């Protein structure tokens, strides 16, 4: 049988033969992967999609049975209701969003300002019983908020911090400082101490050396840490529910929860408020996603 050179050296049969088994396995795995991921995605994303859908449905469609997935009328009324009170002016929900911004922002800033230098000190200096101290700091996070909230409530009542933004800011800061110290210590450990040594020999003081040479290298880590702290404060529910009550102090989570539980529930409003509430976190996380991953792999996990 004559075999042309082309056929003889053709990679066709080779490609079809040996790796085909592997490719079958590969395809099988691929199909399984996609199927599992799809199931997971549906389970995870369905509530989110449903929330978004509900937030733009007219009330009639929200309660329709069978549920309308696609052919409903889109409306932005619920979003308007989130921000504007029925009689005009600011709605209580929008005030609670503003409160959330203030409380989460200030507590995160405080935790960063306190936690970053502390992390630097723990990383750079020989501190007595350093490991025990660090463990103690971390252990303050082991306590579930529900357990601490009663004593905190009693103490706050004594000093008049009940139902104040300052009270929430302090408690969130207290919760975020340990986290900031732990995560930032990982980042500081990654920056060689020699930069500061060199700077001190150049003639800078220790603090100048930290400020001018180490701090700029820590900025990505600080951003990642701050976003985590921000998300914690933004989402916090237990303390906010127990420690605040008036509309002009309340943060968004208890305010949104408060929408549910009357005789009728305006699900459209609840959904719209939830979307507005979730958005900043998503945007932030997206903006610093690179650093978040770096933060998780570099700072928090290693060491």
């Amino acid at each position, binding site marked *: 049988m004559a075999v042309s050179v082309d056929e003889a050296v053709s990679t066709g049969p080779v490609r079809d033969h040996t790796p085909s088994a592997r490719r079958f396995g590969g395809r099988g795995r691929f199909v399984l992967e996609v199927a599992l991921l799809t199931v997971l995605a549906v389970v995870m994303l369905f509530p989110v999609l449903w929330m978004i859908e509900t937030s733009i449905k007219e009330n009639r469609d929200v309660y329709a049975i069978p549920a309308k997935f696609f052919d409903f009328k889109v409306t932005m009324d619920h979003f308007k209701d989130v921000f504007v009170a029925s009689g005009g002016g600011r709605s209580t929900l929008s005030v609670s969003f503003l409160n959330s911004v203030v409380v989460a922002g200030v507590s995160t800033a405080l935790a960063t300002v306190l936690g970053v230098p502390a992390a630097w000190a723990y990383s750079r200096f020989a501190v007595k019983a350093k490991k025990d101290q660090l463990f103690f700091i971390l252990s303050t996070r082991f306590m579930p908020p529900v357990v601490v909230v009663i004593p905190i409530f009693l103490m706050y009542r004594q000093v008049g911090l009940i139902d104040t933004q300052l009270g929430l800011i302090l408690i969130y800061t207290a919760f975020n400082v340990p986290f900031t110290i732990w995560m930032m210590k990982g980042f500081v450990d990654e920056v060689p101490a*020699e930069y500061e040594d060199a700077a*001190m020999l150049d003639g800078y003081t220790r603090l100048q050396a930290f400020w001018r040479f180490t701090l700029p290298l820590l900025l990505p880590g600080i951003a990642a840490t701050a976003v985590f702290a921000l998300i914690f404060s933004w989402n916090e529910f237990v303390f906010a529910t127990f420690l605040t009550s008036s509309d002009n102090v309340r943060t968004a989570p208890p305010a949104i929860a408060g929408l549910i539980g009357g005789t009728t529930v305006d699900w459209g409003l609840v959904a719209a408020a939830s979307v507005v509430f979730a958005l900043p976190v998503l945007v932030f996380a997206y903006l610093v996603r690179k650093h978040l991953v770096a933060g998780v792999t570099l700072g928090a996990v290693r060491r």
Partner: protein
Amino acid sequence: MGTVAVHGLCKSFGKVQALDGVTLDVPDGSFFVVLGPSGAGKTTTLRAIAGLEKLDAGSVHLDGRDATGDAPAARDLAMVFQNYALYPRHTAYENIASPLRARRCSSSEIAAAVEQMSSLLHIERLLQRRPAQLSGGEMQRVALARALVRRPRAFLMDEPLTNLDLKLRVEMRTELTRIHRSLGATFVYVTNDQVEALSMADQVAVLKEGKVQQVGTPTEVYERPANQWVAGFVGSPPISLLACHAEGDRLVGAEGWTLPRPSWTTAEDGRTLLLGLRAEDLSVEQRGDASLSGKLYGLEPLGDRTVVDVRVGTEIVKVKARPTVTGTPGERLHVTVDLDRAHLFDAGTGLSLSEAGQ
């Protein structure tokens, strides 16, 4: 002025005793080399002088004044770090300028000084690059420039030439020696390269496991090593050490050889000794009255010379010979010994028994 004196420095890291009573006296304007193998505590010594290491014990005096507790910035020293420690976000220019910026010099002064340093160290073309864009040798030169750009009390240099290629290293050696002469400044220079130590130093301190073994001029350290370890560490090829003991007017080797007893040694009979023979004090070419017999073990041609490994009993003796020397392994040889230049050490303590070495 620029004297540096440290006394009784002790520093441990956990279980590791990095410094164990290091005492050094660096005279003003000298090129003082701290020589030692990896892990000897050289870097720790420099960091202690610079004030970067909290000491367990000991004191640091600068210009005769106790500076033990002073902040690094207050000590007025410049240091080249072993791993460069160049600021990663700054360009080479800004790195070199940093000590001047810390002292609030004007930008024209800074520009002039940086330019002068960069031409001296051949890094003009690299000034706008960041450390990540530089090779190891280039970073090392930038680090050198950052130290040399200012006139401190003393320069501390931690193996500043190790990452340069041989040609550049030899060139920089000469250059540093020249800079040292022209500045008249005090240099404390750390290296594990004995050639650097012997060729550049006014004084060498040999360090091992956190202890100073010997301080002296390069000649002293080479010609009269204080102990067996210094003798073995300094010199290339390494000194050959043969176990023996004195017996009347002879030295009797553990391997059965005998040599006339050198006139200068006072070691009593029967004490176990080590005879130290440097390769250049031995010869395979003519036969003298003091000689060892052995077998040719191997030849190491090094271009300008050949090192002949001779097996005496079970021990190898290295002999420096002319590059033209030939031979076949196993061939019988006589190694002539210049006993006036030999060294004797106590096998127990390792200390030199040559009166000059003490």
